[in-house]
């Protein structure tokens, strides 16, 4: 199963993850 997020954000939005990274719910995904 998969969760897909699609969202609008200011151009400066930055992800704080990388492809293949293991993540847990509540951990940082991105910031402005």
């Amino acid at each position: 199963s998969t969760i897909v997020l699609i969202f609008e954000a200011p151009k400066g939005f930055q992800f704080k993850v990388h492809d293949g990274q293991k993540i847990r719910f509540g951990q940082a995904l991105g910031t402005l």
Partner: protein
Amino acid sequence: MNVQERHLPKKKWKLRTLGLAFGSSTVAYLLYHQDAEVKNLEVTLYRKMPLKAMSRLWGRFNELELPIFLRRPLLSLYIWMFGCRLDEAEVEDLRHYRNLGEFFRRQLKPDVRPIDDNYVLTSPSDGKILHYGRVENGILEQVKGVTYSLRGFLGPQTWRDAKSTNINHISDTEYQEELGMQPDHDLFHCIIYLAPGDYHRFHSPTNWVLHHRRHFPGELLSVNPGIARWIQGLFNFNERAVYTGTWDHGFFSMCAVGATNVGSIKIYCDEDLKTNTRSKYPEGAYFDKVFQSSIQVAKGSMFGEFNLG
């Protein structure tokens, strides 16, 4: 190269070179197309498999109540196979789970997943980041280099007053433009893959307001990274529940995509949603629900769960 060849006239050399180039190109072309044909056939055969029926059967089997003496050995085997963290589960005594289905949707202890308040967007679930980035020209990547279309994934923008209700008449770029984003904004996406051993409930990644749900009763192909690299447009084929709304920065959507054996999606604020039913629908069919009063969803709050079946 022998002496005779070394002294061949220039014209003959050119002909040989051209012939060699033509020959190798032809072989490469034939090999490529043979591979493409074989791959297409494999994908077609895979999609013909009765994966939804098999998943329903698997779900029903896993809702049978296990005798207490069998619960610990059987669930321990699953935990060992998929590397589950039993110490994080709210209930650690395996005898309390009546079957694998219950264990699969287990809750976690309240303190094992702190929500990071320093970031505006946090992960909605445990899992692996399959891909993320900007959405360019209405095209998303499921893994690097393998794409699917935004309009195919979300469908017509009936949740807002979009100009085009028939998305077949507009390009992918036009579809993205019709989202009506602010000029200094971009569209982003992130895909999180939940492996069998992961905690299978999911939470809100931010504070947002939910207006609309679209249920695509598609297929239940596997979504593991290997399959995502193999099948272009995978996420547009699978059964999914797409929730759209707004957050502080404009459009926001969160989508739960089902997979083989995990096609039963439950959303706590949407009891009408019924997934992986026996009904048959044409490809691309979908069902909408407009929430009469918008639902405020708080960051970190429990949103839904995937179940076996």
